[in-house]
């Protein structure tokens, strides 16, 4: 694209909004939109947009801004008529506006999202595990016939009885008793 005409710029803007611009095309856009005093009115909003994004720092001249104010053109975002046909005019092209942001800004927000997700997981883990650790340090539960008994004493008693029973196996008196009882 050697000759820079408003029509070419419109095409370049379309490519830019689709996120398909090359560095050379961006440079062309910057140079053209930076000389805002000779911009057609419909391209003025894009010059302002570029200025806001800080990519080319175009500075529309006072005359151009006056002309824009006098004309009060509504931003014709359907530059070459394709966005409006498929997406419904302004609303459809608004989505195109965001496409250049899918580059660095998009990645930035993605990273921020990941960080937020990680922070949420860490917070949930802390909240869930902290009381559990305390509970784990001291707990006593018993299950009888599939029913949970939140009776610490009962749980403790069951445990003690099981151990007494097992450790008493080596007890000679009990062994004799078992023999006499026919066990």
């Amino acid at each position, binding site marked *: 694209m050697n000759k820079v005409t408003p029509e070419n710029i419109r095409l370049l803007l379309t490519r830019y909004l689709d996120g398909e611009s090359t560095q050379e095309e961006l440079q062309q856009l910057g140079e053209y939109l930076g000389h805002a005093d000779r911009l057609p009115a419909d391209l003025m909003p894009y010059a302002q947009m570029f200025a806001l994004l800080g990519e080319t720092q175009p500075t529309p001249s006072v005359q151009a801004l006056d002309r824009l104010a006098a004309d009060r053109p509504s931003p014709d975002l359907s530059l070459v008529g394709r966005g409006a046909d498929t997406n419904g005019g302004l609303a459809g092209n608004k989505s195109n506006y965001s496409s250049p942001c899918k580059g660095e800004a998009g990645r930035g927000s993605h990273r921020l999202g990941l960080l937020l*997700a990680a922070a*949420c*997981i860490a917070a*949930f*883990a802390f909240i*869930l*595990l902290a009381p*559990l650790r305390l*509970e*784990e*340090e*001291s*707990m*006593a*539960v*018993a*299950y*009888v*016939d*599939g029913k949970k008994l939140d009776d*610490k004493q*009962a*749980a*403790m008693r*069951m*445990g*003690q009885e*099981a*151990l*007494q*029973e*097992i*450790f*008493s*196996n*080596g*007890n000679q008196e*009990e062994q004799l008793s078992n023999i006499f009882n026919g*066990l």
Partner: protein
Amino acid sequence: MKQLLITLVAIVAALPLSAQKGLRIDEVFKGNIVNELALQESLVKGESLEPYKLKVLHTVKFTTSSTQRDRVEALFEEDMKGRLSDDDENLELEYRDGHLYYAIVQIADIRKGLHRYICYQSRTNMAEHTITLVYMEGKASLADLRKTFKKK
């Protein structure tokens, strides 16, 4: 995010009852061998066990058939392979009629100074067997435990 939370909650819910994880008898504690409705189970952790120098005491008791008794016995014998030694200070064992009658086995520590024990007892009455299975861990030695729990 939702799936992650569900997984997290599931892990957290499983933690308290997995003290003897890694042992074959864990299957019995989990109710995979004998229906958990038939189990009498107790799980005690923490300060209640301090007088016994224990940190975890997990017991199950159930009455079952010979077939299931054999399965439980086999699992216990598998775990016995991880015993610390055959010395009296680490092991008590008795077989009757070709089956394990009772056993107190110290198995290898997971952490230094934290001893682990598995215990088994089977009592036969007619065709039914009442089995008691215990897992415990703590600083107590087998001598300490004998002193505490052996009936005079």
